């Protein structure tokens, strides 16, 4: 029934783990870099190869792989449907491009020896989280992601980044523990860890609700939903550029992805409409608050980090919109499609933006916005990247961000939830305000004496960001493939979906 490629599913985790081990063992920077690039390319090829079997398996709702051959309740399954596939794809693409960037970023830096193993372990964690079909396995994946992220944030070595990492670690551990408590309660209630089984058994009793709330709080903490976002800006702002990129683009999305799974699938009966609205309200707050804080930021990287806080808020609008959407049968429905599209667009744009900021930081040694006036002449490519990514974040056409916002708006309008429309539009406007605060730098006419103290940035660092930004734009030209992909799965095993 399944093609041979399906058997490569575990390689999604195996390749990164293998790469991590090899990178740790090989003591040569160049070989490590080449090896990493090869692994990233392999990973991408693998994911692309999995697209076709996934399309052929729409009836089964996705691809399932029973590790160890035991089958779900006893053993652990890997499961990939359209939703997971999108995230895997984004991960693979981003990892490849960010790896290229990192090769240059860590070119003359002894931290590379630690960076690559941690990097690949993080990738393993991400892929693990996206393919997990077992709630305890998700916990382990979360820890893998969380600790790897902390270690990567701490890579910088400055006191600020150490403090940020420590705070991030504490928050991550707290989130994991809240999640684990939820798992314990769920196991107590249903006697199984399998996602499929729980979602077929789940009901709206007190313990399930409690578990859902614990899990939600834990994951929201990891997703930096306002007001639990306080750890994010210093952590994302203090990390090396590729790390910031992956943190903002994927790591926070992993926990969001799990939130979707829990609310819409695993514990769908326990998900009350009221709490979904509450999540939406928090999301709306995040949009407004993130934008305000971003506008206020004096450092570019902090600005971008707050922008992540704001953009994550849009994702949470998914919940109230889905709650009201009675026709939702698959993940291909408007609200989820919109949120996922948003997620992808944001991942691309935000990582591009972080790379651009990383270049600026490399060039100038600082990222204080006020002192970056010569940027247009000295770092045109970085600014250009920033601009394109910014346009996508604002949600202006022709970018992926626009399509995402368009879909979200459509979802809100077709559910007659006007207030979210207002929030989204307002968010876009506010995003414009802080993005253009940076872009204005390009146009302020400067005297030449300010044009000093700028190091050269190699093309290998400038191009990946641009490629990502261009990808974010390209995403705005055809949304159909992504939505089609998303609609695979969901029907078979999420019969309980509202």
């Amino acid at each position: 029934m399944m093609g041979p490629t399906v058997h490569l599913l575990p390689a999604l985790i195996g390749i990164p783990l293998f790469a991590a081990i090899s990178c740790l063992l090989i003591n040569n920077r160049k070989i490590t870099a080449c090896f990493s690039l090869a692994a990233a390319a392999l990973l991408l090829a693998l994911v692309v190869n999995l697209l076709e079997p996934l399309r052929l398996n729409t009836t089964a709702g996705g691809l399932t792989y029973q590790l160890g051959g035991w089958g779900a309740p006893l053993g652990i399954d890997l499961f990939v449907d359209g939703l997971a596939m999108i995230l895997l794809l984004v991960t693979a693409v981003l990892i490849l491009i960010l790896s290229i960037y990192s090769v240059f970023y860590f070119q003359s830096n002894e931290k590379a020896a630690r960076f690559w193993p941690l990097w690949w372990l993080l990738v393993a964690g991400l892929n693990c989280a996206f393919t997990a079909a077992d709630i305890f396995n998700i916990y382990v994946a979360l820890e893998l992601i969380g600790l790897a992220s902390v270690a990567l944030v701490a890579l910088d070595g400055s006191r600020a980044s150490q403090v940020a990492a420590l705070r991030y670690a504490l928050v991550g551990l707290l989130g994991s523990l809240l999640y684990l408590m939820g798992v314990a309660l769920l196991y107590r209630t249903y006697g199984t860890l399998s996602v499929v089984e729980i979602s077929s058994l789940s009901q709206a009793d007190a313990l399930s609700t409690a578990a859902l709330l614990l899990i939600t709080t834990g994951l929201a903490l990891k997703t930096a939903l306002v007001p639990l976002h306080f750890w994010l800006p210093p952590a994302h702002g203090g990390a090396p550029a590729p790390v910031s990129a992956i943190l903002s683009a994927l790591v926070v999305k992993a926990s969001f992805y799990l939130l979707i799974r829990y609310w819409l699938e695993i514990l769908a009966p326990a998900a009350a409409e009221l709490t979904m609205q509450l999540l939406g309200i928090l999301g709306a707050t995040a949009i407004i608050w993130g934008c305000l804080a971003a506008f206020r930021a004096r450092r570019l990287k902090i600005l971008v980090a707050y922008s992540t806080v704001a953009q994550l808020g849009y994702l949470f609008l998914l919940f109230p919109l889905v709650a009201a959407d009675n026709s939702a049968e698959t993940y291909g429905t408007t609200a989820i499609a919109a949120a996922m599209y948003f997620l992808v667009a944001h991942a691309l744009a935000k990582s591009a933006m972080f790379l651009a900021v990383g270049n600026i930081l490399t060039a100038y040694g600082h990222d204080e916005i006020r002192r970056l006036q010569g940027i247009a002449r000295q770092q045109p490519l970085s600014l250009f990247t920033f601009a394109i990514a910014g346009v996508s974040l604002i949600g202006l056409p022709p970018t992926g961000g626009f399509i995402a916002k368009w879909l979200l708006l459509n979802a809100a309008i077709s559910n007659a939830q006007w207030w979210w429309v207002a929030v989204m539009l307002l968010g876009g406007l506010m995003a414009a305000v802080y993005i253009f605060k940076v872009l204005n730098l390009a146009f302020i006419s400067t005297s030449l004496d300010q044009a000093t103290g700028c190091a050269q940035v190699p093309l290998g660092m400038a191009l990946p960001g641009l490629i990502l930004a261009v990808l974010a734009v390209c995403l705005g030209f055809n949304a159909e493939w992504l939505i089609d992909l998303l609609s695979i799965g969901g029907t078979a095993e999420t019969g309980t979906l509202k």
Partner: protein
Amino acid sequence: MDLNLNNTLPLLIVLSAFIPGLLIFAIPDQREKLRTFLNLGGNLLCLSLIGVLLSGVYAGRVFETRLPLLPNMDLVLNADALSLLFVSLSGLLWLLTTIYAVGYFKGSTNLSRFFGFFSLCVSATAGIALAGNLITFLIFYELLTLTTYPLVVHKGNPASLRAGRVYLVYTMIGGALLLAGVAWLKSLAGALDFTATGILSSLPHLDPLHLQIIFVLLIVGLGVKAALVPLHGWLPIAMAAPAPVSALLHAVAVVKAGAFGIVRVVYDVYGIEFARDLGLTAGLAVLASITIVYGSIRALYQNDFKKRLAYSTVSQVSYIALGTAIAGPIATIGGIVHLVHQGLMKITMFFCAGSLAETLKIHKISEMNGVGRRMPLTMTAFTIAALGMIGLPPVAGFVSKWYIGTGALEVGAYWVLGVLAASSLLNAAYFLPVIYAAWFKPAQQEWPDKPADSRFEAHWMLLLPPVVTASLAMVVGLFANAGFTPLSWVKLISSREYGLTLVPFIPETLLSFPQLWLIILVPLLLASLFWIKPIRPSLGRFACWAAVPALLVGIWLPDTSVTLNWLFFSSVIALDGTTRVILLMSSILWFVAGVYGTDYLKRDKQFGRYGFFFLLCMTGNFGLILNQDVFGYITFFSLMSFAAYGLVIHTASAAALQAGKTYIQWVVIGEVVLFAALAGLAFTGTNPVSGLDNSLQPLWVSWLFVIGFGIKTGLLGLHFWLPRAHPVAPVPASALLSGLMVKAGLIGWWRFMPAGEVELPGIGATMIVLGLGAAFLAVLAGLVQRNPKTLLAYSTISQLGILTTGVGVAFRNPEAWPLLLPALTLYAVHHGIAKGALFLSVGLGNRLAKPGIAGALLWLAVIMPALALTGIPITSGALAKSALKSAVADIDWLILVLPLSAVATSCLMMRFLGLLKEHSAKSEQSAVGIPGILAFGSLSVFVVLLLPLLPQSVGFSEKLYSLPVLWTAIWPVTLGAALYWILRKPLARTTPVPAGDLIVIIETCNRFLFKQWRSFSHCLESRYNAWSDLTARSPIVRVERFASDAEINLRPQPGVVLIAIMLAVALTMVLY
């Protein structure tokens, strides 16, 4: 999808601008040649693609690029007639603006950035034009915002950064609202592909309220770019941008994108009839009207040149919205065609403004004095564009206004005419002073030298674009009906929109006698020689010969008519009985006055200029005499009226300037009234283009005609300008003004009012009363004058009063018309010649004081026309008066009154002769030599000889010499002379009525009101500025402050917030 031209061409057009844009970014700043090459290459490619597209669409092929975007939603680029119009405009103007910008930015920095975004901006505009559904439109619309922002802030100084910020705030909010509207509409109606009759009208079960709200959202979103009041705040501030950007923003890209969007939404999304049924268009029309008036008022108060233009844009662009919202096929034509016309005119103006700023560092209107002499071509281009904005034919602006006006009448929206009139007046009020200052005021400072590398007044790249666009603006108006003009395209669009055939078939009766046009073209071509510097000073010398063809044609050519379909709205000129006589009289007078002028002004430094205006006036005069169609008539009428301004103020004395001001004010008012009247006529007539049926016109149109032409004719109550303007001009010009040009109104009455066809008692009575009133009151005012020319001017009013009375009689007794027409013609000719001669006599000066035979002969020559006016036998007056009397013989009381007027006239003429004597005694020398005297003398001879030769006099001249007739002719003269004898002492002592009599009171009132208004508007302005600042800047400041405070407060307490969350969690759980 197989690729062929049909499905790729629209995309290619967008890309042909997009790809050069991207490439240009990569070019280093110094590689100017390469950049220009890329730019122009992309340009030409784009234009040629558009050419292919045009020919393809003309051949009926369908071009559509369709790329999948979302489920059920494609990215569609589609070439229909409307999009072609816009895309051609933008392609063409892009080319010109690029050339201009290359010249403008010579030696500047950051050019790759500029030209890159410039190309992207055009690409976005092309995308907007070609967008086949609302979402595609939205995508390019937002893209346009993004690509124009860098252009606005290009200079990088605080002002432009602020401008950019304001621009962004406005457009982003607008974009957000538009997005909301589109998204909402999409959820109701699906894919939103534009269709010719609208999408929504065909869909059932839509909640009207929703559609109305969506409409408001869309219009507000688009209105920001289209600068509808009160969403226009960004536009004047955005003037901080460089001139090419302003040109592009205002003429093509941004505001047009908004306006174009409105057109799309109203026509192709809602469908015009559906929108009207929903009650949406009315609101839009009102909003557009408010914008039109408001923008114009604000423009009045700007001293910054570009700002004035900006507010003018605010006003003008709303014509498009207005035309769209009026919701009739004709108004649609007007609205859409204005898209192109306004583009051509406004871009010209901005080019000019930029050239002035770049070449002469002029930014303010107050600095523009005399700039016309330094940069004549540029300022000519500007003048053409400005006159077009005012709505003067034959410039493009007239065409749009005309269609909007008639379209409004078609659907019964009479108030729109008022808006158009107000707007035209205001336009004139803010553009004419600029034109005046540029051409007529002396320069205040030395201009910088011409650029060394150029033979021209400015760099050729700065000069060529405005000249081209101005010419285009002229051409598309002049040849409006030709197949290639925007108007024809738009008619096509409109006919599809409404499913009507709007292009009437007119039989081509071409080329029977094109010589007729020679009459008009000869003076026009001569006038154009003015631009050739060596010829300029001597232009006045041979100006008189331009009248000769008219004379010859008038004598030799048989009756004929010429129809030229491609000219105006299809032009008809004809030569028939009445016309021929008037033409003959005119050509004689022009020739004589011309010869006289050659002599009189031979030492004048500005003789060339005089000749120029003289020739233009002549063109206008001949043109209006011959033209039978509305457009042609009003074109030449305006040409004559405005060119006469140059004659009135020729001496540049204080009195002349004052008089000129009064004159031009009344001319403009007259134009506006006439516009309304003609529009009404054109609409009510069976065929709006030719073959007007005057008898169908409604009463209000007739009234407007009475007023409009009445101003020209010096109708009592509308005559104030006349006694001021006529005397101050140089003597030959005065002769022409009083003798000829005032007759234009008379011709207008004959031609466009249903004289002899319909009985209009009210109008008839009014005209009789006013005419007779003028006949007597003007004499009274004239009697007390000291200046012989002023006296003559009053005499003109009085004589024209009698003519007016005659026309009035025709309206009361239509059956009298066959007799009246020749009588009035005779009278007009007689008056023209006589009055011309009298005016010329004033210029003789001390030659009259010379004793001897020469002096006596001269006096004889002076007395002849004076006596002619009184109607003494053997003069033309006798013939004319008796003809008139026999025509009105049925009306007893009039027969009694007419001799009384002769008494008054005689008295006045006596007084004139007396004054002339004094005058000649005082003057020390005469400007006139032998040629002048000969010319004057010949005219005096004509006074006796001409009339009996005319065919109209057949039947009258025989009766003249019977005794009763002689008696009736002589006794009033005697009585009048006696009366003067009695009154001469008191008259000499009386203080003269100021020239223009009642106007003094009117002007005082005006001044007072203006002062009030000024302070009021000043108050308004400062309020507005405060407000626009508030919307533009201070929220950001506030947000900044708030954000910083709040963030500081929050940071130490994440845990507390966390607790709050947990509590919420716990509480929710308890709920379960």
